[in-house]
């Protein structure tokens, strides 16, 4: 874990960042009594990027967001916003805005009143407010509903009002706290696309908190995976998906087949006695405990290429998903791998395996991710 932290250390990395980051968190820590919720977090978020904090509930992602917004005081550490230390600045003086999970719309005001709230607090003149509010309502596709009260709006509309209300202030950073969690699946997918488009259009840095890995993968420029108050790994979606650096990262994003054993001479020996060839990792020390992860879709069950690692197994369960079929294959006592096969046009129904079939599994050595 300390490795991760060091890698993210902005001081060490400073040379690599040409531009000043939108947000820099240095040793940010939050404790509630004895419980440490955020633990010496170091993180840079670049200007204009769509950055996601991804993690299970209770991992500290929302607390981090609340500290950035100023709703929660940091126990320790520094928050730098656009080059300025804002650690002890009141929320209303920080140039960030938040889109809340519950939308937190003001029930006594109509849509226009809600969206213009921040501008009125800033004391802008009326015509300017009106202009910018209308512009923003156009952007979020709510131009016709300016005088509706929040309770008359649908969930998706409320969501867009909340977004407009925050964006209209042109914050340096927009914080979004699981803003799509309350929407139904279909609407959520639509809003994901819209949000991403709006972000591109306005060019504001988005910090997006979510526990939904699909959401994070599809929308983000970069993702940080958080667990127990620490960042396990950060990088592009492809990075974190293809090359998980920790067991948690491997397990949390997508499904992974995780196996731990003893490494010696390019072979990993599991506790159950199963030996798995592990070529191409000269960096590994002999006799060390090593975990490997293989994505289910990276495992083949037929038409193997040369150079693949191949081991036998028995199908214990099949789950038909339409476009894919998921197989659970026992390769050794207590070792069950998940395999995902495309149901391609060329594969015939009869070709599929059923429970109890003896099969062979294979994968390319480069698809095996070795975790420290």
């Amino acid at each position, binding site marked *: 874990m300390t490795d991760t932290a060091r890698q993210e250390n902005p001081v060490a990395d400073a040379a690599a960042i040409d531009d000043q980051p939108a947000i820099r968190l240095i040793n940010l820590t939050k404790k509630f009594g004895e419980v440490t919720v955020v633990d010496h977090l170091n993180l840079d978020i670049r200007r204009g990027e769509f950055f996601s904090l991804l993690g299970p509930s209770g991992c500290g992602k929302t607390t981090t967001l609340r500290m950035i*917004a*100023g*709703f929660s005081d940091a126990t320790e550490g520094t928050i730098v916003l656009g080059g300025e230390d804002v650690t002890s600045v*009141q*929320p*209303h003086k920080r140039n*960030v*805005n*938040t889109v*809340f*999970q*519950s939308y*937190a*719309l*003001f*029930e*006594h*005001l109509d849509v226009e009143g809600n969206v213009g*709230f*921040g501008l009125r*607090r*800033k004391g802008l003149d009326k015509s300017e407010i009106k202009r910018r509010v209308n512009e923003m309502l156009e952007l979020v596709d709510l131009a016709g509903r300016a005088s509706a*009260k929040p*309770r008359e709006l649908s969930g998706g509309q409320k969501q867009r009002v909340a977004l407009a*209300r*925050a964006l209209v*202030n042109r914050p340096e950073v927009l914080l979004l706290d699981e803003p799509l969690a309350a929407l139904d699946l279909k609407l959520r997918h639509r809003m994901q696309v819209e949000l991403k488009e709006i972000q591109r259009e306005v060019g504001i840095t988005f910090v997006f908190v979510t526990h939904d890995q699909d959401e994070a993968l599809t929308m983000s420029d970069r993702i940080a995976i958080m667990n127990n108050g620490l960042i396990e790994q950060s990088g592009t979606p492809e990075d974190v998906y293809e090359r998980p650096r920790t067991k948690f990262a491997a397990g949390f994003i997508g499904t992974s087949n995780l196996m731990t054993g003893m490494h010696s001479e390019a072979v990993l020996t599991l506790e159950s006695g199963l030996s798995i060839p592990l070529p191409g990792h000269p960096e590994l020390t002999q006799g060390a405990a090593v975990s490997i992860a293989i994505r289910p879709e990276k495992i083949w069950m037929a038409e193997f290429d040369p150079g693949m690692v191949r081991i036998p197994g028995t199908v214990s369960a099949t789950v038909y998903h339409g476009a894919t079929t998921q197989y659970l294959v026992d390769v050794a006592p207590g070792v069950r791998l998940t395999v995902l096969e495309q149901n391609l046009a060329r594969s015939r129904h009869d070709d599929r395996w059923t429970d109890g079939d003896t099969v062979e599994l294979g994968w390319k050595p480069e698809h095996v991710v070795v975790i420290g």
Partner: protein
Amino acid sequence: MAATTIATEAKTTHSTSRRRRSVEGKPFFAVAFTALFFVLLYVPIVVVILFSFNSKKSLSVFGGFSNRWYVQFFNDEGLQSSLRASLMIASIAMVGALLLGTMLALALERVSSRPARAVGTVSLVPLVTPEIVTGVAALLFFTGLGLKLSLVTVIIAEITFSISYVAVIVRGRLSSMSGEVEEAARDLGCTSWQALRFVTLPTIMPALIAAGLLVFALVFDDFVLAFFTTGVDPQPLSVRIYSEIRLTISPAINAVGTCMLAVSVLLVALSLVIPRLFGRKDSSLDLISGG
């Protein structure tokens, strides 16, 4: 929301299963019983109104219509000053209880420390204490401190008694308001106070109105506390009514009662209408009744 659902549900069952229901007869019983209940509820009210127009000085024989008791009421300086005193007590107690009760509700919703919970519990005790106990306690407290009993002592006692009503109603509304709403206000440039003023208070306004009207009505009509704590100032109306009905026959009291009734109809009507002016579909009555 739930209300509409139930209403629609009730309507559908009504049309689809009329036959079965008439066999079992329960809703008819309930409805007929309710009708009877309302009749009994309003019988004395009708009597009060009717006899306020009686031309005779009698509460059992109606001798024809006359406005003599209203004339007497409007010329009776004692009753007038009592009415003014009660209006004043109710207004000040309403404002005081609203202020303190709302503070209490806001604090209790947000502070969960041990002392706060203790205060919360204590503030609820008056709700479950018979008024005679509160009255006795207030009397002993004021006389024990050597304070002169006056409208001020009545107001203090009434505020003490009413804070809990306000706190409960306002807390009910606050707890259904997400804490994020205030954060949103601060996020958009408000200080804590501004968030309270521009967002929280407007949001809970219907609850404040409901609580205010309830307290006004309860205090205006309250007899026991006023009886124990009133001094030589003009007596609150309820206390004067009490001494009059105990010792004399005074149909002017019916005129007073009719006027009070008219005012309370107005108040309740307001509580139904005002929230609509704030653009809310539910009314303060829902809050009073907990709906």
